[in-house]
Structures are given as C-alpha cells and as structure tokens.
C-alpha cells in the first residue's frame, strides 16, 4: 500500500463498493420486499455516484473540448454497459450495447483511431447488433420472459466481477503511482522493471528505409517479427493510408488469417443455421402452400 495513496485507495474502494452495490440492486432478481423499480432507482443512483468517483481517476488526453468529450464518452460507455447488463428486455440490452459501441467509438476518435471508430460503428452497431436485434425479435416474439427477470446468483456474480474490476483498477492506479513515485525517488515494487517508466518502450527500431512498393517488400515486412516493427510507423502520412500500409504489409499474415476465419465462420453459420427438420417441436402453423416464397 505504499504505491497507492490513501486517498486513491479509499476512492477506488468506495467506487467499487458503491458500484457493486448499485449493480446488485439494478440486476433483475426476485427478492421479496424490494420493489424492482425502487431497487433499480436506488441502484442506479449508487452506481452514478460510483461512476463519478471513478471519473476522478481519469486524466483525459488533449485539451478543452477533447477532455470534456473524453469524460462524456467514458461515463456514457460505462453507464450504458451497466444498463445493458441490467436491462430486462434483451432489445433494450442490445440498444444499450449500441450506446456502448458508440461511446467507445468516440473514445477511439479521441485516441486518434478514426478509421477504427467508423469501422467499429459499421461492424458492431451497423451489423452485429442489428443481427442480434433481428434474432431477438425472431426468437422472443412473446415478450419479456421470466428468465430475463432473474439473474443467476447476482450476489456471487457481482462479488467476483467487482473484485476483478477492483484488482484491475488497483493495478492500474498503483502503476501510475509507481511511475510518479519513482520519478520522485521512490521504489517500484509491483513491476520492478524500469521500462514502464519510459514513455515509449524500446521496440527495436528498423531503419527508415525509403518506402518501396512491390511484392518482395510486402513479403519482407510481413515475415518480420512483430518486435521489429517500427516504433512510429509513418506518422506523417494520412491516417487511413498509414493504417492500410501497416495492415497489408506488416500484419499481412494476421489479415489473411482473419479473412480465412471470417470465411470459415460464414460457412459454419450457414451450415448451422440452415433449418433441418424437425424445425420446432411444436407445430404452430399449417404447412405452407406449395408456391410459398422461400425464406
């Protein structure tokens, strides 16, 4: 407890306790005596407080508007995440997850990953969640089910996950303190490796050879060990071009693997989802007319 100040320790503990309690109250469960609405309200209030406390640990990058946006997106993402896992209606869950994705995309923007922000929105919000919605609607036309109204062992789950969260946060906060402490002459204990104090760890610098095109160059870069990637790759060029260049040269193998994975997943999904008789144990409708449209 030397690396972390008492204030930080207390704040983190408070945030996790409040947050855990809040989420516990918010989770759907059939505890008699507490009205679900009231429990949800109290829980969300506690969680909001915890969120505000935890925001004191953040030090957003940039200046002015950028900082404000960081805090906004950070708060939104965590709040939406909590609401997602506590929502009774899976459709609401999906929408809250969309909110998480949008906030995360905002954070990506602040971290300078514009293409990724747009890509995340397209892939997650535009495709994955919509597909989820589609499936939820197909599967749950009856409305809210009883299993959506009772969480599994909420106390135990909340305990484990917030313990995990606290451990992670503690590690991060104390590491930051370490960095500070060591600069001031203290000693780092958690990670006795002074490399964490160097803002940019030493990745073997590859000579800035003039950019060449051609297959051989691409292959040379693709077969290069990751530890030899240039430390700052093409900082001057446009964002997407630089990302594309490193993606299709340095990480060519990963890209090809990902492509193969996608293809296999596509085939697998089609193979799995194709209806095979008996489709449903309960026959609901008369057999469709012979000329009924497919799908």
């Amino acid at each position: 407890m030397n690396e972390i100040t008492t204030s930080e320790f207390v704040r983190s503990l408070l945030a996790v306790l409040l947050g855990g309690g809040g989420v516990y109250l918010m989770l759907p469960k059939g505890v008699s005596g507490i009205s679900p609405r009231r429990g949800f309200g109290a829980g969300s209030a506690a969680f909001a407080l915890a969120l505000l406390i935890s925001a004191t640990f953040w030090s957003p990058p940039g200046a002015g508007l950028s900082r404000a946006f960081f805090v906004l997106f950070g708060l939104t993402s965590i709040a939406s995440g909590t609401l997602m896992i506590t929502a009774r209606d899976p459709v609401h869950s999906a929408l809250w997850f969309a909110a998480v994705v949008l906030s995360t995309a905002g954070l990506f923007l602040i971290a300078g990953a514009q293409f990724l922000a747009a890509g995340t929105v397209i892939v997650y919000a535009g495709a994955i969640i919509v597909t989820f919605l589609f499936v939820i609607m197909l599967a749950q036309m009856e409305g809210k089910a009883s299993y959506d109204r009772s969480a599994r062992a909420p106390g135990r789950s909340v305990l484990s996950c917030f313990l995990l969260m606290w451990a992670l946060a503690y590690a991060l906060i104390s590491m930051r303190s370490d960095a500070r402490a060591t600069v001031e002459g203290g000693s780092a204990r958690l990670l006795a490796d002074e490399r964490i104090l160097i803002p940019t760890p030493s990745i073997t610098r590859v000579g800035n050879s003039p950019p060449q095109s051609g297959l051989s160059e691409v292959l040379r870069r693709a077969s290069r060990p990751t530890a030899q990637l240039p430390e700052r790759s093409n900082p001057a060029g446009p964002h997407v071009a630089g990302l594309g260049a490193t993606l299709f040269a340095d990480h060519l193998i990963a890209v090809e693997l990902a492509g193969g994975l996608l293809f296999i997943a596509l085939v697998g999904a089609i193979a799995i989802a194709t209806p095979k008789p008996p489709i449903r144990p309960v026959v609901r409708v008369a057999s469709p007319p012979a000329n009924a449209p497919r799908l």
Partner: protein
Amino acid sequence: MAASDWFGFDNLTSFLLIGAALFALGMLGFIARRNLIVMFLSAEMMLQGVALTLVGFGRYHGNWTGQVFTIVILTVAACEASIALALTLVLFNRRLSLDVSLWSEIHEPDAATPVDTLDPEPSETHSGPESYPHLIPAGAEPPHPRQPWIERRE
C-alpha cells in the same frame, strides 16, 4: 500542438481504466444473465473493453499495432456473432426458449439436476408499467383489461 498531442502514461491509464470497467461489466453480464443473447452481448462488451485497451496502447506507443489488433478483434467478433447467432437459433428451435439453464447437460452423469429446474431462482413479478395500459388523457377511460399484456398479444 505539443500540448494537445501529448499522450502520457496517465492518459493511457484512463483508457485502460475504462477498458477494464467494460471488461468486468461484460463478465458480470455473462455470468449473471440467463438470456443467451444477452450473454453474447456481454461477451462482445468484453471485447470492446479489450479493444479500447489496445487502441490506448497503440496511441501510447505511437504505432499501429494496437489498431491492427483491434481490427482483428472486430473480425473475431463478427465471426463470433455469426456463429453464436446461428447456434442460438438452433438452440431456440429445440427448446423454444433462450434460457441458458435449459442447456446444462454437461455435468456429472449421476450428479443432481441443476438447481434451476428443481427450484427455479426467484424472478421478478410482472408488476410494471406494461401490465395495464397507458391512457391518453382524453375522453372516457376504457375498462381495464384483466389479462396482462403478454397474454393478450396472441
């Protein structure tokens, strides 16, 4: 330029904190919710947390590797979603329910049946805003439907 372009260890920590929170919350959703689809959504949220961490590191180190691996995560998430949804549909077609408790055959052959089928965990009652209609403040109030809205949907 220099001030706004600076991305130090503290800034990185902020990203990591948010990523960790998303990860833990996703984990919580995965182990606490019983709806298959919500579980998968939670898993995706864990991936989001990891992606955020990666992007933060990428920014901190000033190279593309973090973003590249976030793209890989996106790919994996897409694959996961397609396969998971296909499986979910198949499972739903078998049991007509998305409750994950119905799929608990992976236990000791002679062990007791899981707790859910014997003694279902208590769930909230359907007391809520949706069990009786909202009325527009105009005209005479129509008689209350006695059934909850779910049953009347047929």
